[in-house]
């Protein structure tokens, strides 16, 4: 049993607002072109997976990035780490612009900016030993850790709670939770400053999730790591994050301190989202007021004009359908993109109001709003990847990324 529980009192969530800013993202966009044409493929539109987001992550801080499928959070994570090429916008890491960097400078940044992936079953190469996987960053960066790679690997294995003797085993010999630990070890090899974790616990059982969450917090404490924690499980995000950003259809709608946001959300979407999360407490559940959003998520290829949430928002007015609300700071540390935010005195919307506000979208193309859809990629990308024609090449918008 975890005797560390007694030590939890010592681990407090300190105020990190005075720390230096490690990562600053401004107006980041990632569009996937939709190509059509008989002989020559013309770009007829774009899937606007990420449509202008701005966020800051300070040293040692965890920023939770939440949203449902199709909101673009996974795409955002991958674009920040330059696994995908940004379409526009700026990504500054330690003051250095990396959105357009390439070659040497980009490789150097990769020492400090690492990623953990969602699916522990497919993000590790089954043909490589654990040692090869974890020591790969050393080889790629041309660094020899003091004491040698083997010792470093064993130290890392121990750090993440695995048996150092197992360094010559293959991924299939480990369980899901253990594999995820291997992924964490790999991300830690170069002692990065910031780790983007893309749904690191979604594919794991509940009791294992807790182990991995604790591990990440312990490592953060020990190494002063910053995290961008991308997840759809709002309870986990609240637990682990200092600050949280809520995404909807490629936009950030609200950002703020974790507790403040969960206790008094101001954006209608955030309110609806939080009210939908079930709480493991029957009494609370019985007496709870649910806001059941109606209508469909609009397609990111054809986002609605004005505020992206206006097609389902019960507070939407004409202005919302015409202008896009900018992300502004309404209180210290609390940013909001809404013209008519929720006031604490507002009554919850009735079912009729929600039904009246909702617009349904005619679905023609394959569309997916499932949460843990496919391995490692956001639902938006994978909705197209799921149904390729047998001999016809897949619609090319999801293959335009030839970075690295």
């Amino acid at each position, binding site marked *: 049993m975890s005797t560390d529980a007694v030590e939890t009192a010592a681990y407090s969530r300190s105020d990190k607002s005075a720390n230096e800013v490690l990562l600053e993202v401004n107006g980041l966009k990632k569009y996937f072109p939709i190509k059509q044409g*008989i*002989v020559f493929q013309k770009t007829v539109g774009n899937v606007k997976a990420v449509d202008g987001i701005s966020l800051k992550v300070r040293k040692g801080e965890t920023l939770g990035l939440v949203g449902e499928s199709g909101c673009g959070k996974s795409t955002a994570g991958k674009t920040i780490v330059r696994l995908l090429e940004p379409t526009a916008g700026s990504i500054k890491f330690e003051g250095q612009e990396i959105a357009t960097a390439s070659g040497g400078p980009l490789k150097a940044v990769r020492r400090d900016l690492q990623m953990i992936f969602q699916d522990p079953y497919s993000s590790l190469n089954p043909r490589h030993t654990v040692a090869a996987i974890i020591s790969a960053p050393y080889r790629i960066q041309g660094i020899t850790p003091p004491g040698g790679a083997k010792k470093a690997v064993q130290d890392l294995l121990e750090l993440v709670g695995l048996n150092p003797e197992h360094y010559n085993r293959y991924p299939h010999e480990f369980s899901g939770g253990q594999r995820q630990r291997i992924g964490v070890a790999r991300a830690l090899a170069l002692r990065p400053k910031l780790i983007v974790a893309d749904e690191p616990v979604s594919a794991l059982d509940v009791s294992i999730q807790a182990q991995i969450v604790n591990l990440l917090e312990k490592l953060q404490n020990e190494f002063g790591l910053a995290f961008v924690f991308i997840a759809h499980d709002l309870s986990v995000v609240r637990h682990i994050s200092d600050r949280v950003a809520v995404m909807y259809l490629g936009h950030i709608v609200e950002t703020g301190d974790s507790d403040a946001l969960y206790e008094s959300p101001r954006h209608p979407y955030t309110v609806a989202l939080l009210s939908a999360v079930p709480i493991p407490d029957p009494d609370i559940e019985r007496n709870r007021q649910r806001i059941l959003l109606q209508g469909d998520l609009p397609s990111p290829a054809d986002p609605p004009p004005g505020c992206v949430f206006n097609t389902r928002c019960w507070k939407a007015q004409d202005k919302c359908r015409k202008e896009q609300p900018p992300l502004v700071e309404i209180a210290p540390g609390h940013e909001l993109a809404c013209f008519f935010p929720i006031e604490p005195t507002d009554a919850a919307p009735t079912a009729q109001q929600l039904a009246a506000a909702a617009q349904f979208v005619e679905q023609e193309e*394959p569309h997916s709003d499932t949460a843990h859809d496919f391995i490692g990629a956001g639902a938006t990308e994978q909705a197209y990847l799921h*149904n390729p*024609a*047998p*001999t*016809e090449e897949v*619609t090319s918008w999801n293959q335009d990324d030839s970075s690295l």
Partner: protein
Amino acid sequence: MVRYIIRRVLQAILVVIVVSVVTFGIFQIGPVVFGADPTYLYVGKVASPNEVKAVRHKLGLDKPVPVQYWIFMKGIVVGRDFSDGTSTVHCSAPCLGYSFRYSQPVTQLIAGAFPVTLSLTVGAAILWLSIGIPIGIISALRRGSLLDRSLMAFALAGVSFPTFVLGLLLLLIFSYGPLWLRWFPNPHYVPFTQNPWEWFHNLILPWLTIAITSAALYARLTRANILEVNSEDYIRTAVAKGLPRRSVNRHSMRSALTPLITIFGIDVAGLLAGAIVTEQVFNLPGLGKLAVDAIGQQDLPVIMGVTILGAVFIVVANIIVDILYGVADPRVRFQ
């Protein structure tokens, strides 16, 4: 869907053009790189320089390579004349060239050889589908049983035999073997119009040669597909709905057999282009034999003609298969 088809047709035309260029190009390596003169293939050993020159001109071999290619391709559409001032040979569209070995337009040669290959292909296809798929289905339904394992063992054997071994073996037993097993005559071809029974009789061994290998393959594929589909969630749902076995099987067949469409199309196209080995073994004057002989004799026009025809078959088959697949699998249709 229509846009999809148009795009595929255009791509197909492009492929055929590329194939024709490449084939044409291969036979220019001699003349262009080594300076060898192909005219000497068409004249006797004792020919005067004038005769050689005349033949060269007649065949258009004195023109630059790209022009030769252009003349050839144009001929396919509008026909072509081979003239040396004294005699003219007219080759009407589609003119795939003129073979001086056989003294016939290539198109005619092909037209003569095609029915043979067609008979061979269609018969073999019917045979392998009607043997292979049911075996695969039975094996899958009786998975793990002795029947299943024996059938799959035979299938493995069938797939492992190279066609020429199988063909020669069949001949050895049924044409040249012990008298009481000599059910088939020396291999040759009898046109259907001449004698339907003989046509049929003489094609049985060649059909078996091709069909056994393919049936084995299809049996294994069918079985694998059915087993895979049966573990799919939607089959579980069908059972959970209370559907009777045969309805559940219908659901699985629909999914399991659809991928076979693609494979079948390509297989048939490949055979139509010339079942080279089988035709050689059984002495059937089909496109395959035509192609092999032409290569041996460096009869460029025939080679070009057969190759282009083969390419056309394959691209057309691809298009048809894609369309059929779209009919079967709606996810493809809505791209």
